[in-house]
């Protein structure tokens, strides 16, 4: 393969590096990289990968650009508002480097399409903002034998790791399951705008090293970054022989949609500390806005002790419950520790309830802070 004069000039700083050089730049040009999620992580990763001359760059995203994205999603401009993210990102990347091919996938990644899309690429960069998609991407990469560079962020903290088939553990080896996790998304917890810039640049670095076959990868190493402390840390982890997807006897042999079981879908809900809920209840008794308390624990737990006025509606029933979007006042979900009630917020939100709330720390926290006589089963 030959490079044009323009390409030789464009990539001249790479060509000066012995670790890249002409041979390495040819590898980059021949590479096909897919970025899942054109968000905070995907934006800087895509910009750097386009700039460095990745020959084929794919972008998967089904969202549209919103004003609140522009604080950190640097691939977009104000003029992109309301445009499909994949399309807007593709336009920007083509402007940055017209020598490369940008492929846009303006769709939701699902079990039914992940194989066909991933099959077009050599490696995957995961910058999604959903745990369910994170597991779908990991499982598909393991099953299809594709390297994966994964990262995630929360407020001021980030994590990154790399999976290379046959060389180390996968994301499920690190965190086997997050279906019981109450992990808030950026839209709910907030995020420092520059944080994904750091992690996305790390992902681009790992992708480039993978393609070049240079350096030491984050294989079996979880890199964590704390922006407030300005400190990186590293934690090693190993392949699990019983991993559901890359283990010796895998139970997951086809990509699965986990959206129904991973409940951390981006949803705005209010977290109430015990004192805040207590103040709301007192205010309500004095004529303030109504507060509806819903205890989502199992009936036996509810029977053993519950807050006065709380209705019992076990979590399993929530999927069958529709909510009036015009309901007045505050609906607060309760459980033992706050994990199930956070999940209840996500489920109820999907079924029409606007701005649900939950008691953070659950009834255990309530008993510790407000009412030590409450028996919490």
């Amino acid at each position, binding site marked *: 393969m030959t490079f044009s004069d323009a390409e030789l000039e464009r990539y001249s700083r790479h060509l000066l590096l012995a670790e890249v050089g002409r041979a390495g730049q040819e590898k980059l040009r021949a590479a096909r990289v897919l970025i899942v999620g054109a968000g905070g992580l995907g934006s800087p990763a895509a910009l750097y990968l386009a700039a460095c001359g990745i020959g084929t760059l794919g972008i998967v995203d089904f969202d549209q650009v919103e004003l609140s994205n522009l604080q950190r999603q640097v691939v977009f401009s104000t003029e992109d508002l309301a445009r499909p993210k994949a399309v807007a990102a593709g336009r920007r990347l083509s402007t940055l480097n017209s020598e490369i091919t940008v492929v846009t996938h303006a769709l939701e990644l699902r079990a039914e399409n992940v194989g066909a899309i991933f099959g077009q690429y050599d490696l995957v960069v995961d910058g999604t903002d959903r745990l369910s998609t994170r597991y779908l991407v990991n499982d598909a990469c393991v099953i299809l034998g594709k390297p994966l560079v994964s990262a*995630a962020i929360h407020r001021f903290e980030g994590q990154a790791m790399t999976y290379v088939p046959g060389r180390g553990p996968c994301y499920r080896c690190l965190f086997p399951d997050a279906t*019981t*996790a109450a992990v808030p998304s950026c839209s709910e917890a907030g995020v420092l705008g520059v944080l*994904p810039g750091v992690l996305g640049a790390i992902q681009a670095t790992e992708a480039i090293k993978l393609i070049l076959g240079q350096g030491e990868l984050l294989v079996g190493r*979880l890199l964590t970054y704390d922006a407030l402390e300005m400190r990186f840390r590293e934690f090693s982890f190993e392949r699990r022989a019983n991993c559901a997807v890359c283990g010796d006897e895998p139970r997951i042999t086809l990509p699965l949609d986990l959206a129904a079981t991973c409940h951390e879908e981006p949803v705005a809900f209010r977290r109430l500390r015990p004192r805040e809920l207590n103040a709301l209840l007192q205010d309500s008794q004095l004529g303030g806005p109504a507060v509806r308390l819903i205890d989502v624990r199992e009936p036996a737990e509810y029977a053993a002790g519950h807050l006065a006025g709380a209705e019992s509606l076990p979590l399993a029933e929530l999927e069958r419950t529709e909510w009036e979007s015009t309901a007045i006042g505050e609906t607060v979900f309760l459980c033992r*520790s706050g994990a199930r009630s956070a999940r209840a917020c996500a489920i109820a939100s999907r079924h029409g309830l606007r701005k649900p709330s939950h008691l953070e*720390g659950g009834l255990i926290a309530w008993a510790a802070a407000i009412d030590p006589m409450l028996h919490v089963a």
Partner: protein
Amino acid sequence: MNCTVRVASPLRSYTGGAASVTARGETVAELLADLERRFPGMRFRMIDEQGDIRPHIRLYAGTRELRSLAERMGEDRVLHLICALSGG
């Protein structure tokens, strides 16, 4: 003995936003019990009803992974609470 506990970002809502707290104990169980006394509800976010570390949580003593509540901190005086993050 006191240990420094480094708190994962999603768990800091329990520690009033503190990234680092101290806890007393020799084993993981003792340290988490001490955390629970001061930050109610925090232990259950990490440990399930069967006493197992939840699958989206990892605990490290320094750089050594801790796989059960019975494990001792030993020479390591920093307990790291690592939690899966979902944001992108």
